């Protein structure tokens, strides 16, 4: 059993080490929320940003609004975690950027000891006209175990608004991961970029489902996935862009790298529901070339360390 202070310190130190900056939490000029299990340990907002959060039986419900015209200068840090080996945490969030608001959110999902655990992120994001929102979700899992991770996002983007979403696992095992992102670029000239980077090992299972519907005229989208699988891990990628409006442009780019007995399936789907839309794709499944690995081994790295080094670049 950890004390509240211990929980806060542990989660924040891991968050700052794996993508946050020192001072991301606790500073007067920072915006942040720290949640352990279903308890809100800390929450701080600044003028122009409203955070309403309530504890539920297995997590929290949060509504975050960035008010019209507000440009948040520093990233907003959301730290969700649990230090126990088993349990569940469900984070339901609704994020609304009003007109011309701009913000960068970084979510840190931290489960360093998880063995049997369910972590679900159910997010609804609405971007009003001319707003811009970057959302980066970084996961830190333990070195073993069967954590189940379910990041689900439903995003709606109005005229001239920009959405960038980035999911990255930076440490530990994937476990059983199913990313499910569905974006509707509804507004004219709205823009979307969705990136997923995952490194599966042992018997991890990773499923990435990124869907973007370009229903706004001249809207555009890029879906990018980098999935690396080794040992006996399995991965499935579905990236779909539907060009459903005049002048809509989209591209799906998926690279899966497999080593050992790993198995991968990549399905880039491009659909032009409107005759004036243009959508393209590229997908590749391959191994890390021997010369890359041997080149690093000739510098003294073991074969495993050489693969990890190559992967660190692919996922950067």
């Amino acid at each position, binding site marked *: 059993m950890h004390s509240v202070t211990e929980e806060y310190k542990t989660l924040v130190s891991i968050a700052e080490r794996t993508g946050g900056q020192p001072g991301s939490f606790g500073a007067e000029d920072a915006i942040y929320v720290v949640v352990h299990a279903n308890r809100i340990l800390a929450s701080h907002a600044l003028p122009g940003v409203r955070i309403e959060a309530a504890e539920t039986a297995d997590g929290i419900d949060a509504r975050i609004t960035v008010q019209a015209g507000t440009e948040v200068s520093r990233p907003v840090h959301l730290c969700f975690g649990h230090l126990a080996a088993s349990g569940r945490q469900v984070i339901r969030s609704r994020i609304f950027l009003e007109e011309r608001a701009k913000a960068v959110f970084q979510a840190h999902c931290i489960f360093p000891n998880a063995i049997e655990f369910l972590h679900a992120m159910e997010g609804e994001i609405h971007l009003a006209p001319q707003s811009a929102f970057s959302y980066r979700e970084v996961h830190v899992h333990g070195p073993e175990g069967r954590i189940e991770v379910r990041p689900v996002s439903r995003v709606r983007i109005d005229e001239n608004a920009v959405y960038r979403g980035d999911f990255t696992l930076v440490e530990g095992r994937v476990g059983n991961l199913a990313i499910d992102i569905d974006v509707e670029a509804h507004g004219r000239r709205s823009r979307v970029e969705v990136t997923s980077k995952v490194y599966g090992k042992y018997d991890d299972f990773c499923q990435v489902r990124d869907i973007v519907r370009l229903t706004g005229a001249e809207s555009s989208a890029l879906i990018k996935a980098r999935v690396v699988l080794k040992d006996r891990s399995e991965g499935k990628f579905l990236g779909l862009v539907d060009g459903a409006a005049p002048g809509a442009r989209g591209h799906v780019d998926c690279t899966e790298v497999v080593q050992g007995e790993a198995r991968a399936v990549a399905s880039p789907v491009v659909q032009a529901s409107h005759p004036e839309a243009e959508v393209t794709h590229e997908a590749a499944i391959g191994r890390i070339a021997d010369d*890359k690995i041997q080149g690093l081994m000739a510098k003294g*790295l073991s074969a495993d360390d050489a693969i990890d080094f190559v992967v660190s670049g692919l996922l950067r």
Partner: protein
Amino acid sequence: MLEPRMLFVKDVEVEREGNRILRGISMQVHPGEICGVLGRNGAGKSSLAYAIMGLPQYAPKKGRIWFDGEDITEWGVTQRARAGITLAWQHPARYEGIPVRDYLKLSNPSAREEDLAEALNLVQMEPFYLDRMVDKGLSGGERKRIELSSIYLMKPRLAILDEPDSGVDLLALGEVMGLFKVLASGGSSVLIITHREDVAAACDRSYLMCAGKMILEGSAEAVKRYFLSQCEPCVEQKPENTGEAASNHA
């Protein structure tokens, strides 16, 4: 009195896809020496480099390799590298998303920023390259020079440089050739694999390879002279000495 041998290759045979690509190769490299292996394209020079480095595809079917008196024939690439052997590849691999700084630090994790800049400077590269990626954005020559910088930082006991001049422009060629001496003066032995007689001429001693065999050994000048004579008379037919060079062909 026999000179001490750092690397000793004895009667090595390598087969690939049913072809004998190294046929009874014997050679040696002494401590602190710059030694060349000269030969035309397809002679088997790179295969020899890979066999010395321990690439499993080039494992000797016959013969042995010793390094510092230890039989390393069964050792893997990592073990050989940790013993002090390294290889600068003719076409070094590219690494998406890896900055030059991180790549160079693999060779020497304790290298400071100024050490990295010095290593680049030795091959006529500016420090801003440290922030570039070791990927397709670099030209072949740039990538090659970064590889040579990484060898310098590693300070290996034996550096095998496979066609070190390939892709390098004429202006930087002098620096690249100067690097051989810098490495040797720092205590490394250098084994240069090349098809260019002017590069081989920068060596203390050379071998000449032809069709998977080591056909001549001698001073760099003598081996160069023989190579430039279109290898006439052919030592395959007349295996006697050529000047101060000695036939190594059995």
